[in-house]
């Protein structure tokens, strides 16, 4: 069995095992996450050395068979998932994990890997369904009334999204008679085909929580447990965004109308999310609204990429996805630790505590630098390529919006960080720092990774530049 099928099957197998053996769930889950990271690294190495890796399941070629393809973009996404997964698993294995976390997380991992590697629409739909259901489970895991309510809304929104995607895929099959990615180009050539694409895109917009269809998301991400929020915000929404990017690269978002809509919605989300984050009173809610804003930025980047292969704009989008995944997961883990140490997550109360700022608050600050997109983070490199590409295309209004979004993100994140810099009269001389916990290590590790990734951006960019399958 090749690495490609293994990286999809291993987590799914682990999902079954962890569900069957609850006492050993943490050990099995952590082991599977570690193996997944090794497989992803190995696959990345293969892509760097020999270009895209393809596997036709059962040796049936397209359009009949199912093919898995690992190209550079998929490789970057697999690595992103593996790294975030390692940190979240570290935190979950050390903390008091709820029963059910590991099977759900393993299913999420398998579904994401499958999604990134699939090269036909039907396979993608299946992976997407598993992902959506596992994500709803992760949301509900906290067990509070708010979490259950949010999970129900999430389920409803997810079903609507899935139905739209399914409808689109069915329509696309009736137009083109095939489900592999070649179909996408054909779709752009007929009216019915364009409707099919629009349906798929609409479904993905719901699933990606892109403004204005993000209504379900802040509640879901802010009421889930920290490890679950980190997975949902960093990885699960990326599944849908990845697909938008992939379809766009295959020529699907090549229709002018879809691209423009995507960019406009993205800009709207960037501003709306930032505005809500500015007004948020609770830390988790602020971070969740910041995800709305960041998804907006990424969607904008995908939307403005005119001819994707001629500009670096889509690479900017991929880099922004990568850096957001690391930084946002770090931030949710850090927020979890802050709330645990202080007993609450009210922003106004952060500087009134008799606790000195600890490592989690430091991790939050570093992750914030990444999210704002200040150098030398990967977020900065992503924004650099985005703005450089827009200058070449004369998209000055988009640049103005991006800069405005950046300024707003600095404003809402500094609200929190300035309170983490508490000292002087607000803290007694005898106040202690909270002790180190594993969650701090995971958060700080991810945040530092997001910071340093900017210095090592050559690696993901080289991966992205390998030719497509």
């Amino acid at each position, binding site marked *: 069995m090749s690495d490609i099928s293994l990286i999809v099957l291993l987590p799914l197998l682990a999902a079954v095992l962890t569900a069957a053996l609850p006492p050993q769930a943490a050990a099995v889950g952590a082991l599977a996450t570690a193996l997944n990271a090794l497989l992803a690294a190995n696959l990345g190495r293969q892509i760097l050395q020999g270009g895209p890796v393809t596997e036709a399941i059962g040796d049936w070629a397209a359009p009949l068979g199912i093919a898995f393809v690992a190209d550079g973009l998929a490789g970057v996404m697999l690595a992103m998932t593996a790294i975030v997964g390692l940190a979240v698993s570290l935190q979950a294995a050390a903390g008091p994990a709820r029963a059910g976390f590991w099977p759900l997380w393993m299913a999420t991992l398998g579904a994401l890997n499958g999604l990134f590697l699939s090269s036909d629409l039907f396979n993608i739909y299946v992976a997407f369904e598993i992902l959506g259901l596992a994500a709803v489970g992760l949301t509900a895991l906290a067990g509070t009334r708010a979490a259950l309510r949010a999970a129900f809304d999430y389920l409803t929104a997810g079903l609507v999204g899935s139905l739209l995607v399914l409808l689109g895929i069915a329509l696309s099959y009736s137009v083109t008679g095939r489900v592999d990615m070649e179909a996408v180009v054909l779709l752009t050539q007929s009216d019915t085909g364009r409707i099919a694409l629009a349906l798929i895109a609409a479904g993905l917009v719901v699933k990606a929580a892109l403004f204005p269809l993000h209504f379900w998301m802040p509640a879901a991400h802010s009421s889930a447990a920290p490890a679950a929020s980190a997975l949902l915000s960093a990885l699960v929404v990326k599944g849908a965004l990845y697909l938008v990017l992939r379809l766009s690269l295959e020529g699907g978002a090549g229709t002018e109308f879809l691209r423009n809509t995507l960019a406009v919605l993205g800009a709207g989300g960037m501003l709306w999310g930032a505005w809500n984050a500015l007004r948020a009173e609770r830390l988790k809610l602020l971070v969740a609204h910041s995800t709305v804003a960041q998804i907006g930025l990424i969607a904008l980047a995908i939307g403005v990429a005119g001819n994707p292969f001629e500009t670096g704009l889509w690479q900017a989008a991929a880099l922004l996805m990568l850096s957001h995944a690391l930084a946002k997961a770090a931030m949710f883990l850090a927020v979890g630790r802050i709330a645990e140490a202080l007993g609450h997550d009210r922003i106004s109360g952060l500087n009134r505590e008799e606790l*000195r700022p600890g490592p989690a608050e*430091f991790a939050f600050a570093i992750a914030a*630098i990444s999210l704002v997109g*200040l*150098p*030398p983070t990967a977020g900065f*490199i992503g924004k*650099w*390529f985005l*703005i*450089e590409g827009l*200058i*070449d295309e004369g998209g000055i209004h988009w*640049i103005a919006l991006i*800069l405005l979004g*950046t*300024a707003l993100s*600095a*404003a809402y994140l*500094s609200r929190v960080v*300035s309170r983490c*810099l*508490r*000292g*002087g*009269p*607000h*803290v007694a*001389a005898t106040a202690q720092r909270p002790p180190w916990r594993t969650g701090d290590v995971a958060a700080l590790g991810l945040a530092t990774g997001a910071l340093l990734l*900017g*210095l*090592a*951006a*050559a690696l993901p*960019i080289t991966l992205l530049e390998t030719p497509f399958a």
Partner: protein
Amino acid sequence: MSSVLPLAILMTSLGVAPVILMMPDSARRLRTGFNLAAASLKVALVAWLSYEVAHGASFDLRHSIAPGLELHLQADALSVLFLALSSILWLLTTIYAVGYLEGGTDRSRFFGFFSLCVASTVGIAMAGNLFTFLVFFELLTLATWPLVVHRGTSEAHRAGRIYLAYTLGGGLALTLGTIWLYALAGEVAFEPRGVLGELPQTAPLALTAIFVLLIAGVGVKAALVPLHGWLPLSMVAPAPVSALLHAVAVVKAGAFGIMRIVYDVYGVETVQAMGLAAPLAGLAALTILWGSFRALTQDDLKKRLAYSTVSQVSYITLGVALISPVAAIGGLAHLVHQGIMKITLFLAAGNFAEGEGVKTVRAMDGMGQRMPGAMLAFTVGALGMIGIPPLAGFVSKWYLGAGGLDAGQPMVIALLAGSSLLNAAYFLPILYRGWFCPVPEGATPGRRLGWMLAIPPATTATLVLAAGLLASAPFSPLGWTRFIVSLEYL
């Protein structure tokens, strides 16, 4: 070898910062020992580097981040000027800060970010292209913020917010200008006489817009009017931070940025030909006068010094913008001269506050008797600022004035005379009160300050005197700037 030295100079503060941040507050001896060892090592390394650069060696350290984006550290003569200033003053300020914060809280955080601040300054000094400059320029913003809010009061946090809004806003302008220039010209390395080639002819409008963006970006930190609003507010920070902000790190990074943009990105001839020099000089002149006027009415000693900084830093900009080699020598030398004079003033002012609880001009009566050492240092700094020979400030003003004549701008003489009169008008009353007014009735003797607070201002005051007296020596700031200017103008 040629790549190790710049890296070592960077790491003696960039690598030191995380270690200090991780140390517990109680590990005072360990932290201080480590910090001072690193600072001393850096001075030694910079001395070595200066020697090598003076003898024609070149240093290069490159790390590719992405196609077309490269982190590049190098050491040219202009770098060495700023490196020497920041490494020496960092050592002195660190000693001072250790004494000043004795018994305070959050000292590991303070010294950690203090190191990070100097790491950014050093990175700015050695940046070999605009991208690298931008990276360290933004790092400087972030590293200074925790220092500004260090006291933790609401006033400090308000000042911190305003500081952040100004500097991040400036950072956005600088970022946009940098990306735009990269999109037009490819990699923008720093080379004497500029790197733009034919672009001034083919895309003059875009280049003008980029110039405005870049200068506005660095102008916030250089406190060019009207972008100077953050500076007087950030005086709530502890004295060593103010000293560092005003003399070495933030405002100097801004002024240094203006030099790099004018000299090594655009080149003086292009700036002149595009008609950008005169507006810049006008802005500098306005800032010089405005800062001095505002300084006149400040009773708070540190605020008066802050407005004085607004004014004095623009001498550097003026020297750059006059487009005359003689003025350039004055401006560049003032980068160092203003640094040592202003740090002397701030350290002495910090001692007045620590020793006698004196924070306002009005309370300065009899300071010459109460704290003769600190008052003497303050006097040397103040007289230097006014431009009394043979102190360092006189040398800068002399060259600036001569440069004004050289550039055919005799108005510069009037500007300098007016500014010096204003300098005298806001500094001499302080000196008068300190030396000639009696100690007020009922003033209780303050606490004695340790050597850590006394030595640094005494040292910098001596440097002010030496930089003036020995101005013609080859390794004086003036001698070194002549060397730099000869590269740009010959």
